[in-house]
């Protein structure tokens, strides 16, 4: 077409349309980088902005259909790489870039999305410590949200089988990557809550690339974890990087196996705690009984003292009476009749006689009291023997059978709960399910 060869007059619309044709044909697929300015997103949902660098500006528009695929939110000042095609906005005579895909310059789009969502949820308080629920101390039923065919369930079951954990495991199979995975994961967490089907949840998957793990960075999953009344352990197999799910979860395990270990360990700790309490209970009772026995012996010995005391008293009375007679005799060669009479009466009144009678009474009482106390002690000892028998049947043995051992320091027999109770050179007796071993402590560490 030769526009200039003869005097051919075009309308503005015609010219614009021609220009548009040229641009659209030649700039159908371009990548361009620049900085965003004049960003606007009216209610239509389309995105308008200007892309600029030091020397030029380019108007851009991104239609709503394309913005939906955006993982991050563009902001003024942000460096962008844009893919699109050029077109002309006829009414204004502006040419513009019709953007189809944006990515933040420097960071990948996913990384940008991750950072932005993390900031937003943190500001909302979803990661706050006070929302973290403690894990149940005695977990009975573990809910697991992961793929039925992935590495995660495999690893978790391996740990639990190895540890004979006596736990019920309820797997809720979901897709853990790709379109729709996030919604399935979130739905499973909500279903577990609705059914109250578990007392702790493990939500996760085996390792993978950032794209593979993406479902665990989605807002729906974060919200579902946040709203869960059942405590959630996140277990996305990626030791180094955190996912959004990790931040919201009540506890983060670096891998699915680690999550299983956490659950099992809490149960093992409980069993140890009960065992150690049973041990203390026994020891303190034996100790108390020995104390009571000692006290009793002391008491029954001191019961005899009053009779001795009374014995001394009556002796003294005799003595005094004798000295009185002697004194009277010595003082006057012939005591008057009256005096002799008084002395005789005094003799008759000798408290020693009363004391003798009292002593007999006391001895009888003492014997009865002593017998009663010993009877009580005997029945107490029987009671303890019966209860101790029950204890014997309790867990220490079954625990020992599981491979635990009890360490007693020698010679005092103190149970060792922490290495701080020991010093190098101490001797220990280790009690196993069958038999014991004598050990020397070589060194201690915390």
């Amino acid at each position, binding site marked *: 077409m030769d526009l200039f060869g003869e005097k051919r007059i075009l309308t503005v619309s015609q010219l614009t349309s021609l220009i548009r044709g040229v641009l659209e044909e030649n700039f159908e697929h371009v990548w361009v980088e620049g900085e965003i300015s004049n960003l606007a997103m009216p209610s239509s949902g389309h995105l308008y902005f200007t892309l600029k660098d030091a020397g030029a500006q380019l108007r851009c528009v991104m239609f709503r259909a394309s913005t939906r695929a955006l993982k991050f939110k563009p902001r003024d000042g942000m460096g962008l790489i844009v893919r699109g095609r050029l077109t002309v906005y006829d009414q204004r005579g502006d040419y513009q870039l019709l953007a189809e895909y944006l990515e933040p310059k420097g960071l990948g789009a996913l990384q940008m999305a991750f950072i932005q969502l993390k900031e937003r949820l943190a500001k909302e308080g979803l990661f706050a410590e006070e929302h973290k629920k403690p894990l149940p101390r*005695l977990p009975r039923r573990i809910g697991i949200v992961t793929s039925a065919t992935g590495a995660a369930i495999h690893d978790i079951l391996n740990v639990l089988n190895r540890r004979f954990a006596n736990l019920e*495991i309820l797997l809720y*199979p979901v897709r853990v990557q790709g379109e729709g995975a996030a919604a399935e994961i979130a739905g499973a967490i909500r*279903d577990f809550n609705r059914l109250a089907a578990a007392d702790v949840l493990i939500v996760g998957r085996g390792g993978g690339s950032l794209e593979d793990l993406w479902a665990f960075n989605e807002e729906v999953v974060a919200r579902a974890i946040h709203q869960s009344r059942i405590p959630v352990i996140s277990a996305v197999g990626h030791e180094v990087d955190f996912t959004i799910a990790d931040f919201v979860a009540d506890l983060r395990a670096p891998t699915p196996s680690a999550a299983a270990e956490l659950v099992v360990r809490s149960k093992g700790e*409980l069993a140890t705690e009960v065992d150690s*309490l049973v041990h203390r209970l026994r020891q303190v009772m034996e100790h108390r009984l020995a104390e009571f026995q000692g006290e009793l012996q002391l008491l029954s010995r001191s019961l005899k003292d009053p009779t001795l005391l009374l014995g001394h008293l009556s002796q003294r009375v005799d003595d005094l009476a004798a000295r009185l007679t002697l004194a009277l005799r010595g003082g006057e060669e012939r005591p008057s009749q009256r005096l002799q009479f008084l002395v005789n009466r005094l003799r008759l009144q000798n408290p020693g006689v009363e004391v003798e009678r009292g002593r007999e009474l006391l001895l009888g009482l003492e014997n009865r009291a002593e017998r009663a106390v010993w009877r009580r002690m005997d029945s107490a000892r029987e009671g303890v023997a019966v209860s101790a028998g029950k204890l014997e049947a*309790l867990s220490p043995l079954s625990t020992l059978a599981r491979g635990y051992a009890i360490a007693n320091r020698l010679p005092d027999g103190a149970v060792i709960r922490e290495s701080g109770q020991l010093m190098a050179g101490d001797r220990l007796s280790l009690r196993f399910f069958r038999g014991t071993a004598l050990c020397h402590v070589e060194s201690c560490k915390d």
Partner: protein
Amino acid sequence: MAVEKFETSLKKLEEVVRKLEGGELSLEDSLKAFEEGVRQAAFCNKKLNEAEQRVEMLLKQKDGSFGRVPFKLDDE
């Protein structure tokens, strides 16, 4: 829930042991406390060993209800 009862029981056991270790109780009360401790310990152990290892899969039915089927790993 059974879990809470376990925790209560464990707490009672702890209290009993602490009370006994305080050494203030009479012989009579010591014995009572000891028996109580034995009872709580037995309960705790029972609860600890109660659950069976069981692995199931939760399957959502078309009507929105849930069914459970035993779950096995492929390589087992």
